[in-house]
């Protein structure tokens, strides 16, 4: 089978409705823009919130919006939604590994912090010492080498 034969059996350009496709692009662009603006608003709201629990709620909401944006980019811009089911499944199913990946590693990090704070009190004490804010000039520079910086 020659290379070009391969394209003909793939149902491509026929019945491609450019106007409908264009409308879909505009719709998805608007959705992505609106979600981004909502995320930014949440970001600004979070600056004034100091309650730990509320901050986590807002961060969770931002993550949900992030996943929604990812869905719209992959499904419509990358066109995955309009591919055949077999192809969608070979892409999406392996990405399910991320569910384990994220939960396992973040839990591990959290557990490491708790254990270290509990069994290494010196580490915990050191991490609670506040440093007085250096009077930062508008454009701080490398002349004043910061403490702990690698030369």
């Amino acid at each position: 089978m020659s290379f070009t034969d391969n394209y003909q059996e793939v149902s491509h350009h026929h019945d491609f409705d450019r106007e409908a496709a264009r409308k879909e692009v505009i719709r998805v662009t608007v959705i992505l823009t609106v979600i981004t603006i909502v995320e930014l608003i949440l970001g600004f709201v979070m600056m004034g919130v100091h309650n730990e629990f509320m901050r986590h709620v807002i961060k969770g909401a931002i993550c949900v919006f992030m996943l929604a944006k990812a869905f719209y980019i992959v499904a419509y811009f990358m066109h995955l939604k309009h591919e055949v089911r077999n192809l969608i499944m070979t892409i999406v199913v392996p990405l399910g590994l991320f569910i384990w990946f994220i939960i396992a590693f973040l839990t591990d990090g959290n557990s490491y912090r708790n254990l270290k704070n509990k069994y290494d009190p010196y580490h915990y004490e050191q991490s609670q010492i506040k440093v007085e804010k250096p009077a930062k000039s508008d454009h701080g520079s490398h002349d004043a080498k910061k403490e702990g910086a690698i030369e």
Partner: protein
Amino acid sequence: MSHAVPADQKWWSGGKSPFNVEYGKVMMWYFLMSDAFTFGAFLISYGTIRFASNGWPDPNEVFQSFPGLGSGLPLAFVSLMTFILIISSVTMVLAVQAGHAMDKKAVVRNLIWTIIGGIAFLSCQAWEWTHLYHEGAWWGSNPFTNMDGTKASTNFTNFFFTITGFHGFHVFSGVIINIIMLIMTLNNVFERKGHYLMIEKAGLYWHFVDLVWVFVFTCFYLI
């Protein structure tokens, strides 16, 4: 496109392409999947270290400058960068659709806009990196304190420069790929082939770069 296909199509009985796309596109998808795991590993290691730390710098304090407007403007510059990348993704979709319609002029126009968007994004990133460098931030150097005023480790800057650098490198190579696509279009390579499927593959890569930015933007600037 699936709607062009009868519902009871037998995909695996031989003689036809079971994924209904050509080889190069399937391979592009598999490459992007592996790249997604690379970026995923980066971002998850960032998350793990952040969860393992007692304090972390406040992004609104670190990223609060805008070229020409000074500082005190959290989220402003990164919003601009995000919108630049979204819009360049949109023009890329339009280029792919123009390719479907064999409309060479529209392909060229939209590719040029996409390339301009990519270069604009890279310029923004170059400015941001330079600005942070002059504030004393770099790999192994972190001038910012944690949100609660305690001393921060260099983990924050190390992850920031590594991950945005890796993403910036993807943007850079995407711009190069788009420039090659533009040259090939202008040379009528796709007109002679009879299809613009190559633009679709370049488009997939470009959208992936935008997709990764959605995650990087959220992880570093918002939360």
